[in-house]
């Protein structure tokens, strides 16, 4: 169990994120078919595969700072994903990297600070608010839970686990929402009753972090 997020953890995190997405690709497709354009599964799978490949090839973790690595990932997400998800996930990592800066490890509190900054960048690009039925509805409570756990003195394992639980709850809470951002907003009332695909993939991102932390 890692006690801080190092570059090794981050690289493993992305690999695990891709693994989960690849396995759940059909599920994401199904969600995006219901209220979107059916590309979120393949899009995330294809894009993350590229990001992970670059990360592994370049052995990017070895010397860079954590901030540099997160920004590197942010840039790769931008050029690999496409769609709405690409720039938004990219913003999350670019924002997080900017705050992580020259550090080489993040404790739970620093991780929360960093991700909170990432979320702010995501909102700067996409203007999502709570309840708009987007990935923000999974990510925001997750970062909030992480912050809370860190403030309560929890270790990294426990803090990320509560973040994941909050993401899952946030994802489920998107089902009854009427979409106000992204493609699902075109559907009006018909968007109600479906889980948001971006909230689902964002939850996978948080779960992958739990796994990566547990593994190291």
């Amino acid at each position, binding site marked *: 169990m890692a006690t801080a997020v190092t570059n090794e953890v981050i690289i493993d995190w992305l690999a695990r994120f891709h693994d989960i997405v690849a396995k759940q690709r059909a599920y994401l*497709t199904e969600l995006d*078919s*219901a*209220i*979107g*354009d*059916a*590309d979120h599964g*393949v*899009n995330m799978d*294809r894009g993350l595969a590229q990001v992970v490949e670059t990360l592994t090839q370049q052995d990017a973790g070895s010397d860079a700072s954590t901030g540099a690595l997160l920004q590197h990932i942010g840039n790769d997400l*931008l*050029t*690999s*994903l*496409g*769609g*709405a*998800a*690409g*720039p*938004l996930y990219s913003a999350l990592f670019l924002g997080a990297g900017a705050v992580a800066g020259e550090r080489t490890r993040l404790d739970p509190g620093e991780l929360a600070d960093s991700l909170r900054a990432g979320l702010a960048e995501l909102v700067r*690009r*996409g203007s999502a608010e709570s309840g708009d039925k987007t990935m923000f509805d999974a990510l925001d409570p997750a970062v909030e839970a992480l912050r809370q756990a860190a403030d309560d003195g929890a270790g990294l394992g426990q803090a990320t686990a509560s973040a994941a639980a909050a993401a899952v709850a946030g994802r489920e809470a998107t089902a009854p929402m009427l979409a*106000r*951002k*992204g*493609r699902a*907003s*075109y*559907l*009006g009332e*018909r968007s109600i009753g479906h889980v948001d695909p971006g909230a689902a993939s964002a939850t996978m991102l948080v779960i992958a972090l739990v796994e990566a932390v547990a593994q190291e």
Partner: protein
Amino acid sequence: MKKLLNDPADAVADSLAGFALAHSDLVRLSPAPVFVSRAGGAVTGKVGLVSGGGSGHEPLHAGFVGDGMLDAAVPGAVFTSPTPDQILPAIQAADGGAGVLTIVKNYTGDVLNFETAVELAVEEDIEVASVLVNDDVAVEDSLYTAGRRGVAGTVAVEKIAGAAAYRGTDLAGVAAVAERVIANVRSMGVALAAPVVPHVGGPSFDLGDDEIEVGIGIHGEPGRRRVPAAAADAVTEMLVAPVADDLGLGRGERVLLFVNGMGGTPLSELYVVYGRARRLLEERGVTVSRSLVGNYVTSLEMQGASVTVLRLDDELETLWDAPVNTAALRW
């Protein structure tokens, strides 16, 4: 799923390769990052025009690269916006020193990716202006949505802005003409059967034998409402009325009437819709002075059609009539 494809993952690449070979007199294909540009390169002193978006809407946009229309087109994966690293070199390739106009359909993904690319281009001292096409009246344009979608009206924006650029208009002027088209063009679509996205393998939505989706977009998204199947005349009214109302068309005005096929509906049926749409407009005292009928902004093999109406004036008419030489539009 049966399609004339090899590995679905190669669908866009294989298709673009064939397209570039078939139209090597008009376009060049840059392989990585992928974009399509005018065969002769940027035209010195002319404002460059760049558009792009997810694939699956062919001939949009690559089919409109050539003299009198786009200088470059950036295709993403199927129904997925292209990325900034593709868009940036396309902007560079289109820049003849007079700046570049990017024409973006209003989808969150397209908007965000183009925004980033434009920021990068500006950092490289390319003058860039951008317009957002949002002609789909099926979508409420309110604070509570991502705004109206860009659909078939994009063809009119690209054609008319393209003609303005070829006439030597400067960047601000070309952008202004594009904005004027956007302000005066509206569309509404219907689907009779869903498209099959290659990597999904099944229809994007299920429609009963006696149902149609009204207010659909061009990505196999469900529409605004599902209604019982009806005769062409009735369906056409469902499309024309909201378009004409939203435009506030009045007696004596003249328009371009564009009936666009979604990819899987026979041309003969599009003409049935056209005939009815034209009569409906004429009943409102509107003159149809220009027409376009065909599959221009498609949604793979979706069955259905959309009706687009553009309010015309002398200048827009002249620009619409100006010569164009692209794979999909030529006169």
